[in-house]
C-alpha cells in the first residue's frame, strides 16, 4: 500500500496540483478495489501517466492546391467498423479553415515524433504542437513517420526503454480533439487501453508500442508491429523530392496514345431507332464519344513491343489508327492485337524496330512501404499530364479475382472530372530506373441484366493491381480475349446479333398468370418468346413460342444475366401517318419514325456486343413449369431496314434500299414480291414533286419489276422520262417524272 501511495503521488504531481489533490482521495479508495491490475503504475487510461503526458496533438494548417493537381485525401486504412475510408480532402480542410490533427509523442524535450501523411509541402501552411509552433525536421518515409522540432519551453519526453514490444496503445485523436475543444475539465485519455500485440496483426496506428512492463519501446505509424525509433532509422530531409525520380521511370512505361476513328455513319430516316440502338450497343456514358473522331489516351508498356491501351470497348468498332508517342518527337504507328472480356484495355503492337527493352517488372505485391503515385491523364496530342506524389502503400485486399489490390490509393488521388480518363501507377521510391509496382486495371463489372430494361449497363471500376499481373494480360489466354471487340469494316460496323426470337417483355400480370412471379422478381425480368424465325439459331435448337427466356449466360462470363427488356411501347398500328404523308413538309421526313417496328432492339444490340459467333447459354421457363437450358450461337442479324444496302438515284433525287425481311413481314409481301423501299427523297427533286415519299415501295420502273440495287442502277442509267409503280402501304399508283442528268450539275 505504501508503494502505491508513493507512486500515486508522483503521478498526481506530474499532472498538476489542484485536480490531482482532489483525485488523490478518490483514487486511494478505488485503488483499494483494483486488485491484481497489471499496470501498477497505471494512469487514467491504463497507461503510465508519463506516456499520457508526452502524447500531444499536432495540428496542420493546410492550403488548397492548384486546380488540375491531384486533390489528396487524407485517409488511413480501411475502418474496422464500417469498412470505408474516413477522411477529407486537403482542399476541404483548406476551405473550412480547419486543421488536420494527429497525435504526436515527445521523444526529447524539443522533439516530437508523429505520423507522416505525405502531405505536399506546398500545401502545409503551418504546424503546431499543442499551441506551440513546430517545424518538420526529418522524414522517415519507409516508416511513415516524421520528426518535428517544437519551439518554446521544453516538454517532458517519453523515457524509451529497450526491449521487445508486447502491447500497443493506440492513440485516440478524437478524444484528444475533444479535450482541446472542450477544455481539460473533460480530459479523456489520449490513448486507449494497451492491447496485447498479436504477432503479424495490423496495429491500429498511430500507436505507442510498450514492453511487458508497459514501458515505451517505440512507435507504430504504419500499422506494423515493429517498433520505430527515430535514432538509427533511415531519414530524408523534409524538402527532399521523393517523387521526381519516378517521373522519369514513368515516361518509359506510360506512353501517350492517340486513337483516330472513322466518322460515324449518318443515321437513316427513322433516326429514333438507330440512335437508340447506338446508345445501347455502347455504354450510355460514352455517348459523347460515339461521334468523336480522335481520342487521346495512354498505354502501359507491358512488354518491349506490346502496349496495353486504356480505352473503352465502345470506340473499337470504328478504330482506324493507333499512334503511340514513345517520345514527343517519336510518333509510332501501332497495330491492334485484341481486346479483353473483363478489362477495358486493348493490346496493340509496336513495330519491331521500336521495341526497345524495358526494365523487368517485379512480380508480387508490395505493401507497407512508401512509394510514389504517378497520376497520368491525357493532355493533348502526344502529351500526358503527370503528377507524382509520395504515398504509403497499405495492405492489399483481394478485391478482384483474389489479386492483391491497393484499394485506398487509387480512389483518393483522382479528381472527379477526369476520373474516367486518368490512371494512377505506383512506382518505387527513389529509383529512376525501376518498373512500376502497381498499375491500374479498368475492371468491367458486368451488369446484372441484358436487354435494355432498367438502364442497367456495364460499369467500370479501376483497381490498382500489381503491375506484373496487368502485364500478364499482354499475352493472355484466349479465354481473356473478346474476339468480338475489334475494328470493323464500314459495312459491318453496326452488325447486331440475332437468335431469332421475337421477345415480349414480361409484366407482373403475365408472370402471375404463368405462376412464375418468384423466378422473374415479380415479372420484372424475363421475356416471352412471341415467335421464332425460321432457320434461326433458336429454331434449330427447338425453342418454341410461349416459353419465357429467363437468363442468358455469355460464353466466358461469371454470372448469368437476367433478361430484362426495355418496355417497347411502339404504339398501335395506325400510328404511322400514311394518309398525311403528302401534307408533311420534306424537311420533317427524317423525323418520321419507321412504320415497321425496329428490327434492331437493345437486346439484339447487346447480343452484337457479346460477339457474333460466340455462344450464350439461354435458360427458359416453360409453360408447364419446367426449366430448360440451351446453348445458342449468336448469329449475325439478317439485314433490316436500318442497314439495308441503299442506292442513290441522283437524277431523280431519291434513295432506294433493298426490301429486307422485316419490311416484307410488315407489308405482308411474299419472298418473290418485287420492290425497293424509298428511304429518302431529296427536297426539290423530281421524285418528291411527283409525290414520292419515304417508306413507299417502288415495285416497277417502266414496267420492269425492281428487285435489287443493280437492277435499279441498270434501269436508271440515263436521264429521261420514267414511269414508276408505287405502293403506299395498301394503295398503289403510277408516278412519272423526268430524271436529270446528274453530271450536268
Amino acid at each position: 500500500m505504501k508503494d502505491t501511495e508513493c507512486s500515486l503521488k508522483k503521478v498526481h504531481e506530474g499532472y498538476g496540483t489542484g485536480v490531482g489533490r482532489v483525485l488523490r482521495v478518490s483514487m486511494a479508495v478505488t485503488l483499494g478495489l483494483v486488485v491484481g491490475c497489471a499496470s501498477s503504475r497505471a494512469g487514467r487510461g491504463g497507461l503510465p501517466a508519463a506516456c499520457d503526458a508526452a502524447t500531444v496533438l499536432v495540428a496542420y494548417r493546410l492550403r488548397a492546391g492548384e486546380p488540375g493537381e491531384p486533390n489528396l485525401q487524407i485517409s488511413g486504412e480501411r475502418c474496422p467498423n464500417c469498412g470505408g475510408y474516413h477522411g477529407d480532402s486537403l482542399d476541404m480542410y483548406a476551405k473550412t479553415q480547419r486543421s488536420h490533427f494527429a497525435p504526436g509523442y515527445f521523444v526529447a524535450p524539443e522533439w516530437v515524433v508523429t505520423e507522416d501523411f505525405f502531405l505536399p509541402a506546398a500545401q502545409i501552411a503551418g504546424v503546431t504542437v499543442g499551441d506551440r509552433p513546430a517545424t518538420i525536421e526529418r522524414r522517415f518515409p519507409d516508416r511513415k513517420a516524421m520528426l518535428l522540432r517544437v519551439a518554446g519551453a521544453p516538454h517532458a519526453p517519453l523515457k524509451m526503454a529497450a526491449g521487445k514490444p508486447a502491447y500497443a496503445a493506440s492513440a485516440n485523436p478524437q478524444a484528444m480533439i475533444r479535450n482541446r475543444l472542450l477544455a481539460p475539465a473533460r480530459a479523456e485519455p489520449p490513448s486507449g487501453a494497451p492491447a496485447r500485440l498479436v504477432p503479424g496483426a495490423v496495429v491500429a496506428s498511430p500507436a505507442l508500442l510498450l514492453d511487458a512492463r508497459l514501458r515505451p519501446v517505440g512507435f507504430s505509424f504504419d500499422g506494423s508491429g515493429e517498433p520505430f525509433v527515430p535514432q538509427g532509422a533511415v531519414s530524408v530531409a523534409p524538402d527532399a523530392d521523393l517523387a521526381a525520380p519516378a517521373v522519369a521511370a514513368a515516361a518509359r512505361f506510360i506512353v501517350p496514345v492517340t486513337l483516330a476513328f472513322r466518322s460515324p455513319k449518318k443515321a437513316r430516316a427513322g433516326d429514333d431507332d438507330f440512335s437508340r440502338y447506338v446508345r445501347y450497343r455502347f455504354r450510355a456514358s460514352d455517348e459523347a464519344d460515339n461521334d468523336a473522331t480522335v481520342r487521346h489516351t495512354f498505354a502501359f508498356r507491358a512488354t518491349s513491343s506490346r502496349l496495353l491501351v486504356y480505352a473503352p470497348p465502345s470506340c473499337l468498332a470504328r478504330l482506324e489508327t493507333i499512334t503511340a508517342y514513345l517520345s514527343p518527337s517519336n510518333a509510332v504507328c501501332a497495330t491492334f492485337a485484341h481486346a479483353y472480356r473483363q478489362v477495358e484495355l486493348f493490346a496493340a503492337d509496336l513495330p519491331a524496330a521500336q521495341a526497345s527493352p524495358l526494365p523487368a517488372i517485379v512480380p508480387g505485391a508490395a505493401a507497407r512501404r512508401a512509394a510514389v503515385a504517378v497520376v497520368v491523364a491525357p493532355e493533348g496530342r502526344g502529351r500526358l499530364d503527370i503528377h507524382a506524389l509520395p504515398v504509403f502503400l497499405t495492405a492489399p485486399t483481394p478485391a478482384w479475382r483474389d489479386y492483391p489490390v491497393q484499394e485506398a490509393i487509387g480512389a483518393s488521388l483522382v479528381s472527379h472530372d477526369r476520373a474516367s480518363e486518368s490512371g494512377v501507377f505506383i512506382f518505387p521510391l527513389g529509383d529512376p530506373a525501376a518498373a512500376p509496382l502497381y498499375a491500374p486495371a479498368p475492371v468491367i463489372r458486368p451488369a446484372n441484366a441484358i436487354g435494355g430494361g432498367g438502364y442497367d449497363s456495364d460499369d467500370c471500376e479501376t483497381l490498382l493491381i500489381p503491375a506484373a499481373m496487368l502485364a500478364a494480360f499482354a499475352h493472355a489466354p484466349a479465354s481473356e480475349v473478346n474476339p468480338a471487340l475489334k475494328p470493323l469494316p464500314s459495312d459491318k460496323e453496326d452488325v447486331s446479333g440475332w437468335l431469332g426470337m421475337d421477345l415480349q417483355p414480361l409484366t407482373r400480370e403475365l408472370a402471375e398468370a404463368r405462376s412464375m412471379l418468384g423466378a422473374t422478381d415479380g415479372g420484372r425480368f424475363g421475356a416471352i418468346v412471341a415467335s421464332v424465325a425460321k432457320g434461326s439459331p433458336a429454331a434449330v435448337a427447338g425453342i418454341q413460342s410461349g416459353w419465357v427466356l429467363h437468363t442468358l449466360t455469355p460464353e466466358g462470363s461469371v454470372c448469368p444475366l437476367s433478361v430484362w427488356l426495355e418496355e417497347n411501347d411502339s404504339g398501335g398500328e395506325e400510328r404511322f401517318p400514311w394518309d398525311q404523308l403528302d401534307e408533311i413538309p420534306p424537311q420533317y421526313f427524317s423525323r418520321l419514325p419507321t412504320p415497321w417496328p425496329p428490327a434492331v432492339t437493345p437486346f439484339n444490340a447487346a447480343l452484337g456486343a457479346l460477339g457474333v459467333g460466340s455462344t450464350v447459354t439461354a435458360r427458359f421457363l416453360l409453360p408447364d413449369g419446367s426449366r430448360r437450358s440451351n446453348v445458342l450461337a449468336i448469329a449475325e442479324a439478317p439485314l433490316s431496314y436500318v442497314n439495308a444496302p441503299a442506292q442513290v438515284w441522283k437524277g431523280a433525287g431519291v434513295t432506294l434500299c433493298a426490301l429486307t425481311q422485316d419490311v416484307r413481314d410488315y407489308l405482308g409481301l411474299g419472298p418473290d414480291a418485287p420492290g425497293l423501299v424509298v428511304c429518302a427523297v431529296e427536297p426539290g427533286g423530281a421524285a418528291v414533286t411527283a409525290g414520292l415519299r419515304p417508306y413507299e415501295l417502288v415495285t416497277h420502273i417502266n414496267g420492269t419489276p425492281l428487285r435489287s440495287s443493280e437492277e435499279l442502277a441498270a434501269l436508271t442509267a440515263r436521264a429521261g422520262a420514267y414511269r414508276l409503280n408505287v405502293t403506299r402501304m395498301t394503295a398503289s399508283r403510277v408516278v412519272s417524272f423526268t430524271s436529270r442528268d446528274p453530271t450536268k450539275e
Partner: protein
Amino acid sequence: MVWAGWFWVGIAHAVMPGSGVDVTAAIAAAREKVQAAVLYVKCERVDTSDGRRLTESVSGSAFLIDTNGEFVTNWHVVDKAASIRCLLTDGRHFDAELLGSDKSSDLALCRLRLPAGEQVPCAAFGTSDDLAEGDFVIAMGAPWGLNRSVTVGAISCARRYLGGHSEYTHWIQTDTAIGPGNSGGPLVNLRGQVIGINALGTMLPGANFGFAIPADEARVVIDLLRRDGKVNWSWCGLDLQPLRDFEHNIYFAASNGVIVAGTAPDSPARRAGVMPQDRIIRINGVPANGLTEEALPDLRRRIALLPESEAIALEIVRGGEKLALTLSPRAKGRVEGEERAFKRWNFSAKSINQFETPVLFLRRKSGVYVFGVTSPGNAERAGMQRHDIILSIAGHEITSLDALDDVHRRVTSDGAEPRVSVRILRNGRPRELSLDFSRDFERVY
C-alpha cells in the same frame, strides 16, 4: 343593310339567272321558300371510342323534302344516333326515324314522326349542273347550335375535287359562312331551290371555305336510300388516276380514258387481269373520261352504281395494244365495322373492315380490333392498346364480334376466374396479354 349596299356595288353589272332582279328582294324571297323547311337536328349518338358506351349530343341541320316529313341530312349527323329530334323554324318539334344512310356519300334520309293531321312545309331541289362561280347562294342551318341562321355568299368553285372526300361526289365550294352544325342544311340559289347540301367547312383562320354536296348527285343517292335503305355500291378494286396531274407533274400522252393506278389484292379487277398503267377507254361501251382528277368522282360513281350481278366490259389500252377484259364486280358491303363495348373488360372492339382500316385488313381479313380503351380500366392495366387485333381470348379464336360477345358472357359470369389470357397482333407481331378484370371500374358510389 350593310350587306345590301355591298352587293349592290359589287354586282351592278353582273349577269345572273333571272337577271334584273333586285338582290335583296331575291334573297328574301329565296329564304321565304326554304327557311320554313329547315330543321335543327339533335341526336343522341352512341360513341364507344372511349372503350365504353357513351352517349354524346350531336347537333346539325336538315331540310324537309316531302310533306310526309321526309328530310335529308348528312350521314355524319345521324350516324349511330340512338334518338333523333328535330325543331322546325316555327317552333314545332318532332322525333324522327332513320330511313337510310350512306357513309361514302355522307347522306342520310330520315322521316319525322308526325302525328296524324300534322302538316310540314318542304323545300324543292334545283339543279346543280348549271352553277357558275360567282352565283349567289344562301346557306341555312344551325352553325355552333345557333339555329335558324342564314348566311349569304357566292359560289367559289362549282366543281371541286377534295382528295379523301371525293370518292363518288364533287363539291360546291362556297364562301358562305358554314360552320359545325350547318351539316345537312341546304345551300339555296336565288330562285329558292336547294342546289347543295352543306357538309364540310374549314377551320383554318383566314380560309373562308365551305363545301356542299351538289344536289344532282345527292338526289341519286337519296332515291336509292328511299328505295333500299342503303346504297348498294359495287366494288371492283380499281384505283384510278387522271391523265393529267398538274400537282404532281404527271402526264400521260393520251387525251381519252383514265389510267389504272393499281388494283386491290384479291379484287375483281386484279382477278380480271387489269394491270397498273393500263388505260381504260370504254366501260360497257361508254367512253370513260379521266382527263383530270375532277373527272374521277363521276367515273367512280358510274362504275360503283353498276349492278353487281352483271359483268362489266372494259376496253383498255396496254402498251399501245387494245385489250378487252371482263370484270365481275361484287358488293362493296359495309364500309365501316360494327362497334361494341365490353363491360368489366373496359375496352370496345370493332370489326376489321377493308375500307375503314385497310392496314388491319391486310393482317387479318376477318377479325376484330381494339377500338377504344377506357382509362382507368382493366384493359388499360393489362397493356391493351388501340388498334391491337384480337386473335384469341382464353384460348378461343376470335374472328367476329359475336364470338367476342360469347367469350365475354362466359368469363364474366359469376364464379369464373376473373382473368383471361389474350393473344393480340400488334404491328404485325403476336403478343400476349393477361387481362385481369377482378376490379370493377364501373361501380358508382
